[in-house]
């Protein structure tokens, strides 16, 4: 089998494996082996792409208005963003100054989806969403400073969600590093700056949620 023949069947065997002849070619051909490695690497990196963008607030406004027009909700019944009444069931929030709430907010909605499936003090299995792999498994020992302190508090107060926080924090730190690299490579790139700010925003949200959860 030559490279041309191998690469023609590659789309159909890359995930499932080929017949002995195809596998032998892959073992013996550096060029095809590199190609397969690169394509698989691209696919693996794609799985780690977190949802990064929030829709404009007008999207919710339009949803609200449509539902009111259809008579599915009453006008004025749904509070607008940022003007919500005090949630009566909420536990009183205590200040937790050591972590300095207000860092940034970012890819935390994935974590939020995990958290809302954990009623207080119940162990459970994380519900992974389709397409999201185990992602970056940054060992706890690689976190420093405030990240380490946050994870320490969470593992003390809410051990059942500690792993999820660790995963999310690792992913966010990785995003920040990637975005910072892009900014460093081209300081005039406004899009890279926006991505970096967004990544920091997500980290702030993670901290804020971690604080709320740990104060049960």
């Amino acid at each position, binding site marked *: 089998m030559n490279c*041309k023949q191998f*690469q*023609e069947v*590659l*789309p*159909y065997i*890359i*995930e499932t494996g080929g017949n002995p002849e195809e596998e032998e070619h892959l073992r013996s051909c*550096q*060029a*095809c082996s*590199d*190609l397969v490695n690169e*394509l698989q*690497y*691209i*696919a693996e*990196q*794609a*799985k780690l*792409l977190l*949802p*990064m963008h*929030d*829709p404009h607030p*007008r*999207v*919710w406004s*339009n*949803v609200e208005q*449509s*539902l009111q027009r259809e008579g*599915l*909700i009453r006008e004025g019944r*749904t509070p607008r*963003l940022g003007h919500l009444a005090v*949630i009566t*069931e*909420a*536990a009183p929030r205590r200040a937790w100054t050591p972590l300095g709430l207000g860092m940034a907010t970012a890819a935390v*909605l994935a974590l*939020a989806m995990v*958290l*809302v499936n*954990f009623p*207080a003090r119940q162990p459970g299995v994380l*519900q992974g*969403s*389709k*397409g999201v792999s185990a992602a970056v498994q940054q060992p706890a020992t690689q976190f420093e400073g405030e990240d380490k302190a946050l994870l320490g508090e969470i593992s003390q107060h809410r051990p059942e969600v500690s792993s999820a926080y660790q995963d999310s924090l690792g992913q966010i730190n*990785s*995003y920040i590093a*990637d*975005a910072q*690299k*892009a900014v460093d490579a081209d300081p005039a790139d406004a899009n890279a700056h926006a*991505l970096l700010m967004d990544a920091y925003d997500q980290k702030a949200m993670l901290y804020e*949620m971690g604080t*709320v*959860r740990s104060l049960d």
Partner: protein
Amino acid sequence: MTQAKKIIATGLSEAEAIERAKGGDAEAFEGLYGLHKRRVYSLCLRMTGNTAEAEDLTQEAFLQLYRKIATFRGESAFSTWLHRLAVNVVLMHLRKKGLPEVSLDEALEPQHEDGPKKDIGARDNVLAGSIDRVNLGRAIESLPPGYRIIFVLHDIEGYEHNEIAEMMGCSIGNSKSQLHKARMKLRDLLKLSRAEKAARH
């Protein structure tokens, strides 16, 4: 307080919020919107490559969610169910626009102008280990629409080829072929980007 934090702060589980939303509780629905808006919007944006379209489709997806939430039985995870609903909204929209159809003949006779480039010979410019997600995201945005849709559905959102084939109305072989072309195109774009950066420095 943000919509997502509402659900968390009230101690409502997502399951409780869903049940309340089924009963017409608009605040519970708003909380669900807050939890899932980013993922739905990101999906719409990645598949369409257009902010305005993505916003319209996100809106439509959540309107459909509100109308259909009573039918959610919990047989799958809510996020999975909502996600599938959003994908269908996007695909229906793209079909109305004239979604680039995957050629039924393509599996038999790959088109030469956009077939995979044959890597025969010298080993050069190895990519593995050097991609950062910012550049990957940009490269995905610049994929041709047909390639981008399949790539987003399979490699980012995790749908299997049989599911994609059913959604797109094509064969499993075509789905695999298109995915391969998408990955090859991304490989070329990423290598080009890396070469351009190296040339600048």
